[in-house]
């Protein structure tokens, strides 16, 4: 640990921490554009200038260095005993001296000389570092009278637009493409004040390569200004009208931490949230853009019931009564209950309680999205398992009560011989394979709980409208054993209800004794009953998640 004097604070920091991070930890802002903790440090924006003290001072003197240094590249380390400043400090640095303040304001002036100041129509307005730092550190007027550079607007890839006029050439995006995704589509063209970010182009300007990797959307997040813009979010909302909730991506079993940004009428975008051991600062575009089904007009809003071979809307009482009637006079071995890897641990826990206590069956299945492609980048991985909670669902369904959990061929074999199947899906647009189709077709009475009409729901006799990750509270367990929370953001559409509530209602109607009021209550019971989950209560998980004790990965 290095003992550092930062402004008037005396702090201890880990060796190797830079001044920007050390200051941030203690609530002091050192403004910066090019520095990003997940990328290399070119120190080209010069915004984070700080005033270090001379490291080899003339005997006894404690003097500020003549030259300011960039905070991002000034690394704090323990000094040898004979080189301590003032006899005790490993480093002395000021971030609030007059020289530093002047330098910041001067740099900001340079950053703004070619900036179009089109904040009223800029997507970034409200979450823009140029705005924020100008407000906190900048001059109050412009002295620039000359002609501004007006580089063209460019289409860089499927989801990314470049408004080059707003660019401050911090090169975060270039470094991201070089270092994190390793795809290297971006570079600087021209020189000096004509520097522009661009993709490779022929002399005629035809793109030779586009920004089309699975991580491309991250460049929009790391752009400190409004230069790189997501086409998906373009002109959709001013950021300050968006509510934010910390959640977890449901796109695959990595379990990237995200922030769901939403208004009452739907989810607007997903942004990555830092988690050191899972996704660092990034998410993939499959996850980022995979939320659209939540807002879909096709969402199941009412229960459906098969009448004369067609699924027709009905009301909850009728739908549940139909199921209750069917289930009340059937042999236990003819029933299969199938949980979902898309569902939360709470959903699955209530489901297996229902199967065991009410239906008295120990035959459970696990259903979920079909496996997709895995992608490996230098600093990021996308898993092939496209379900957020396979690990959790598998453990929870099979945890208590001596249940067996069937998956794959074994499950479909079992389904073919069953009379009643209660299938919780929640996997949007899930296509069916031939074996699955045949098995589901042969079922006498199929109850499907889902969020969107799909191939699964078309075989159903009753369809119950469930909820997506954005509409409920709960926990997911990722492939490496991290249990993390998702949070309710928007209300479910129409009369759709949270999955465990539907299951509980069914249980009640069949005479079961189940009385949960909220997901956290179920989690407490999971913590009691499921091995390994002793600490996985909502309170303890918080925003950071907890790692299961027995997970060896």
């Amino acid at each position: 640990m290095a003992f550092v004097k930062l402004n008037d604070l005396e702090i201890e920091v880990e060796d190797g921490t830079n001044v920007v991070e050390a200051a941030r930890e203690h609530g002091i802002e050192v403004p910066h554009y090019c520095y990003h903790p997940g990328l290399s440090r070119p120190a080209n924006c010069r915004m984070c200038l700080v005033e270090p003290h001379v490291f080899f001072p003339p005997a006894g003197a404690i003097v500020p260095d003549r030259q300011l240094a960039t905070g991002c590249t000034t690394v704090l380390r323990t000094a040898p005993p004979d080189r301590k400043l003032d006899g005790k400090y490993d480093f002395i640095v000021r971030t609030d001296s007059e020289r530093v303040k002047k330098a910041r304001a001067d740099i900001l002036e340079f950053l703004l000389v070619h900036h179009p100041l089109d904040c009223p129509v800029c997507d970034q307005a409200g979450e823009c570092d140029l705005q924020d730092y100008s407000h906190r550190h900048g001059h109050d007027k412009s002295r620039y009278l000359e002609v501004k550079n007006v580089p063209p607007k460019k289409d860089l890839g499927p989801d990314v637009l470049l408004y080059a006029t707003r660019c401050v050439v911090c090169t975060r995006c270039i470094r991201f493409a070089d270092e994190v995704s390793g795809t290297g589509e971006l570079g600087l063209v021209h020189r000096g004040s004509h520097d522009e970010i661009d993709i490779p182009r022929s002399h005629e300007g035809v793109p030779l390569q586009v920004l089309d990797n699975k991580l491309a959307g991250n460049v929009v997040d790391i752009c400190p200004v409004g230069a790189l813009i997501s086409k998906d979010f373009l002109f959709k909302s001013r950021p300050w009208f968006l509510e934010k909730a910390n959640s977890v991506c449901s796109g695959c079993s990595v379990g990237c931490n995200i922030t769901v940004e939403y208004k009452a009428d739907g989810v607007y975008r997903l942004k990555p949230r830092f988690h050191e051991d899972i996704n660092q600062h990034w998410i993939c575009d499959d996850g980022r853009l995979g939320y659209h089904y939540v807002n879909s007009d096709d969402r199941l809003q009412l229960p459906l019931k098969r009448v004369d071979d067609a699924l027709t809307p009905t009301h909850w009482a009728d739908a549940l009564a139909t199921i209750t009637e069917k289930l009340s006079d059937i042999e236990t071995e003819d029933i299969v209950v199938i949980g979902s890897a898309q569902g939360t641990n709470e959903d699955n826990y209530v489901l297996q309680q229902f199967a065991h206590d009410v239906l008295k069956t120990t035959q459970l299945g696990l259903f979920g999205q079909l496996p997709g492609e895995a992608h490996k980048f230098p600093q990021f991985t996308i898993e092939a398992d496209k379900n957020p909670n396979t690990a959790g669902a598998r453990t929870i369904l099979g945890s208590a009560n001596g249940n067996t959990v069937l998956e794959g061929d074994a499950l479909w074999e079992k389904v073919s011989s069953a009379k009643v199947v209660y299938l919780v899906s929640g996997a949007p647009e899930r296509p069916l394979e031939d074996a699955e189709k045949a098995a589901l077709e042969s079922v006498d009475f199929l109850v499907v709980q889902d969020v969107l009409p799909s191939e699964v729901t078309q075989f159903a006799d009753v369809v119950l409208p469930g909820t997506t990750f954005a509409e409920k509270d709960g926990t997911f367990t990722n492939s490496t054993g991290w249990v993390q929370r998702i949070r309710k953001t928007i209300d479910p559409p129409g009369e759709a209800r949270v999955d465990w509530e539907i299951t509980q209602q069914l249980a009640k109607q069949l005479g079961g004794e189940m009385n949960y009021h909220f997901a956290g209550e179920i989690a407490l019971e999971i913590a009691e009953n499921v091995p390994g989950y002793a600490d996985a209560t909502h309170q303890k998980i918080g925003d950071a998640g907890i790692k299961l004790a027995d997970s060896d990965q």
Partner: protein
Amino acid sequence: MVEERRILYEHLDVPDINTFDVFRQYDGYTRFEKAITEYQPEDIAKMVMDSGLKGRGGAGFSTGLKWSFVPRDIKPCYLCCNADESEPGTFSNRYVLEKNPHLLIEGILICCYAMGIETTYVYIRGEFTLGKKMLDAAIKEAYEKGYLGKDIRGTGLNIDIYTHPGAGAYICGEETGLIESLEGKRGQPRNKPPFPAVEGVFGKPTVVQNVETLCNLPFIVGNGVEWYTQMGPTYADTRANPPTPDPNTGTKLYCISGDVNEPGVYELDLGLTCSELIEVAGGLRGEEVKAVIPGGSSAPILTHYELDTRLDFTSLTLAKSMLGSGGIIVMNETRNIVDCLLNIMKFYAHESCGQCTPCRWGTPWVRDIVQRIADGDGRKSTMTRPKFGVAENGRWGDTGETEEIYEDLDLLESVANNIANVDTMTWNTICVFGIAVSWPAVSYLRKFRPEFEAAIREGKLVTLPVAEATVPPEENYAYQQRFIPKEFADL
């Protein structure tokens, strides 16, 4: 009358000196042979340290000191010869490359031997096609004669030289910009530290030396330190107590251009004055000296009041200018300083690499302001303000008079100082290109302010008589701030 002392250039005009055989007749490679037979590598490094040789590329940093920073235990270590002579007004390396390339090879060999280096890259300015051709031919010959390659002269030394042409960027003459370019990247300087001596080419310790510096090595080894230190003055650096010697030894290749009768490269001892140099170059063309740029276009300008300034690293630094690359441009009374500054600022705005903010957007801004003044569109306020200068008590302060406010001149000085502050000698940029922009801008403005004011007042470029155009040193704040120690003045 000062005489030229030709050492590096002694045999420059010998016919076919670029061939091995002729070079050999003039002691070629004997200095290298002396080095490897008579001295250990550490001895050579000590000789270079003792000789007081300062890097001739521009910064004037002690070569021996630079070598001492190179960690000896990390291999490979590289030598990078900077032949990207891109400073306007400088053209001395070019003649070495074109006419006497074996001298450079011998210098490289001595440096490689001293530092245990096996690979050398010579980064040649792309426009020097002839220089590269001659050097390539000389390298080929040296390989054939066994002075390069594996097991040189049976000593077990392996030394290879590769030449690499630049692509026309000024900034690739900056040592880390050069290294980036050499590695095949965009020519953009790196943040320092780490310095190249610790982490340079391909992340390995690298010695970066100018052509002229390397060409001095054979003579230091051949003739000895004592002989070398007799040339040029050695000052006392009084910042240390007791004062440490501050040698400015050896000769310098001064490239003199502009309004002199015989422009060209002159090899002279360090430490002669500006007026002496003009005499050597055939005297002034024109009536009187208006200004002298002492070290390439990035150096602060000297007025006719400062012609007795000695042209060596220390004296010019103390005079708030620099010797730089030794590119001296003399201007007579017909030259307009606003126009000169515009010319230089156009060059720097074009050559900024665009990596860091102040330089990327400050340099064209400075150019645009000067352009506006030159076009006659400079702004002048109708208001006046108290004039600062040498006050009645003899100190800097309010003189009691008023002066007119030339808004664009204030803006020009402020913007230039925001890139790199001339008074505090600090810069907000990654490399010293920022200094190269703001030093000329601010020094031209402060020393020739009447001409700038006239351009704004008259709405066009006006060339004033020298006496009128120049701000007397006693009224110039920067000049007032000069630090001239007694010991220095006595020498």
